[in-house]
């Protein structure tokens, strides 16, 4: 009787053991596929030499906002960076125009929004739209680093994006430049912090700590670029200073220092060339060594 019970008990346990083993065996193949896909995508990203410059225009501006800047940069750099323009529609769909030329390792990508209105709630919306576009780009082009340029509200969208959406450890942002970004909106007095600035400061610990940030202000007179108070741009230091690796504030004056002209300001073009774009490394060398290397 006892041995009978015993046998029954053991049989039940052995059934559980068999079920467990079968379960494990069934999981082997999906695991294999997952890890192969995962590793090959990681390898692809790791090997990628693509390092795009992703730009966001300010409010009321379209994806064509940086056309002149790109032309000027291409002339100055004596090399043609390709230009890809993206518009994110209100219904989250993404529209592409332009292409990235094969073997162009530093293309410009401009992300515009169908709803490009001003205001904190719109900026939050636009940051979410940008994250959709960014993820689509990351999936499509497999880059492991990028450079960010935001003009006016574009810089605010970037700040919100970095604090709330950018949580990838496989992609780094090398450099950020915000041009005439009103971190305190049109409020010139830094004692009066807008809700947005307060929020930016509250979540600043989520900013990427290894990046370098440049905040460029333009001034027509001593305190404004005609639209944005210089003190509002300066407020960026409360967000970035001490949080990112380097934070530099630059003020440009003179011709084309009016807010909307800033992207085609000659000094700013030079700054972008110097600080944001990758140095054309060893191009002369390559010519000398010649065909042997490839």
């Amino acid at each position, binding site marked *: 009787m006892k041995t009978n019970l015993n046998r029954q008990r053991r049989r039940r346990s052995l059934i559980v*053991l068999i079920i467990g083993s079968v379960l494990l065996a069934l999981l082997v193949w999906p695991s294999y596929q997952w890890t192969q896909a995962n590793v090959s995508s*990681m390898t692809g990203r790791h090997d990628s030499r693509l390092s795009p410059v992703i730009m966001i225009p300010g409010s009321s501006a379209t994806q064509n906002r940086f056309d002149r800047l790109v032309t000027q940069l291409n002339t100055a750099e004596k090399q043609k960076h390709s230009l890809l323009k993206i518009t994110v529609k209100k219904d989250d769909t993404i529209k592409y125009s332009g292409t990235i030329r094969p073997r162009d390792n530093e293309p410009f990508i401009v992300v515009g929004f169908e709803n490009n209105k001003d205001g904190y709630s719109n900026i939050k919306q636009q940051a979410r739209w940008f994250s959709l576009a960014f993820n689509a780009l990351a999936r499509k082009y497999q880059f492991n680093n990028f450079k960010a340029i935001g003009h006016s509200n574009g810089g605010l969208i970037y700040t919100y994006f970095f604090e709330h959406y950018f949580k990838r450890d496989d992609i780094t942002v090398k450099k950020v430049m915000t041009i005439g970004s009103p971190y305190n909106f049109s409020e010139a007095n830094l004692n009066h912090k807008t809700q947005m600035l307060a929020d930016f400061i509250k979540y600043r610990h989520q900013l990427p700590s290894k990046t370098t940030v440049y905040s460029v202000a333009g001034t027509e007179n001593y305190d404004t670029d005609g639209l944005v108070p210089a003190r509002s741009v300066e407020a960026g230091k409360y967000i970035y200073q001490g949080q990112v690796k380097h934070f530099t504030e630059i003020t440009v004056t003179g011709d084309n220092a009016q807010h909307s002209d800033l992207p085609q300001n000659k000094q700013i073009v030079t700054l972008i060339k110097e600080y944001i774009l990758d140095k054309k490394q060893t191009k002369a060398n390559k010519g000398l060594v010649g065909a042997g290397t490839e």
Partner: protein
Amino acid sequence: MGLSEQQIINRLVPTLLRLRQTNFYRVIQRTVMLTFPFVLIGSFSAIIEQTVLTKTGFLASIFHLSKWVPYYRYLHYPFDNLTNLTLDSVAIIAAFGAAKYHAKLHHRDDQLSGLTGAIALLLIAYQYTDQAQNGLFNALLLGTNGLTGGIIIGSLTGWYFQLFSKPTNIVQKTHAAEILDRTFHSLLPMLMTMLTALVISIGMHYLSVMSYSEESWAQFQKIATTSHSLWLTFGMAALTLLLELFGLAGPYQQRLVTNSPAMTTNLNTALSQHSAYHVPYPFTANTLYDAFGTFGGTGMLLALVIAIYVASHNHNYHVVARWSMLPALFNANGPMLTGLPVLYNPIYLIPFICAPLLNMAVAALAISWHWMPPMVYPVPIGTPGPLIAFIGTDGNWVALVIGLVCLALSVAIYMPFMRLSEAILHAAHEESLRSEMTADEN
């Protein structure tokens, strides 16, 4: 072998049986058993949360659940809650149990003693902050790592009841007046316990013991997990296993450092070279301990589950092992630790430490002979033990085979100790039968 093993068991049984029958051990064992159902429910909830409802969890990853399951982002909330209040609050139950059983053993009011013990633990774990929204209690003291602390506090409470209150009759008293009378007998030890708890709590807060020790502990864990010397890795693994058996957290227990510098370097090297064979740090906590020493959670308890299926004659063992199968498959060892129990059990000390270390040694040899690459690629949370190395080596079949060999080895190591433990249970059972018979005769 069989005969000599039997002889050894026969020689060990009386000694271990005596240890089992000490009051101290009885209280501990009953307390651990009391936590078992809560740990079981909590473990099931935890594995569902970690493997299915976390985006980077094992089942979620390989079946891309986050892409097609509706409302996926919100599904984990109820499981978070359930896990938090069962598995991660288990020390409260332990404090209750220890205080209750200690008081019962000495014929004191066990109900009040148990509740007082639980409250004493909460008093100690209370966090004094200025901000109300912060966590009220220190999670470290209430979770599985606080189990030992809970038992100590519970036992102290029981001891206070033993010192400061009179024995009560076990006979049921139902009159309100008598209950009130009994309550007043217990008031002194209750107050004493709570006062002591408050003093400890404020003292710990004043000296900032918790935050300080947490910090230095995190620092220590960081050093341990980032080490890449072979001997340090083995030493730290042994320490982790020993501490875990006594209900404490070892240096490798919590994976605070998910991306240690050594791991990152390994990964980058492997990605650059398109091969994982020649990475700079082949022998780390990750490549050896995590990959081959934790099947079924700390202590290779999946092996004990299988050993019971194959060879046990004890009914309870089979039941516990069957319930523990699924959690153990996804590396939750709580049900086995508290159900058998393995926790605080000197019999399982040797296999609990030796099985993982032997597996690590096998893996280290296989890596150094280039039979398989060290595991360098990311592995989802809650991956079943034998598949960890397989996934972490980009699907290297040798790694899978070595994982299975390690599992078989561990089953073989656990087998004799399981028989010894069974023999003791059997002896204890017979002894209790015999004492009942002599009691009848009297």
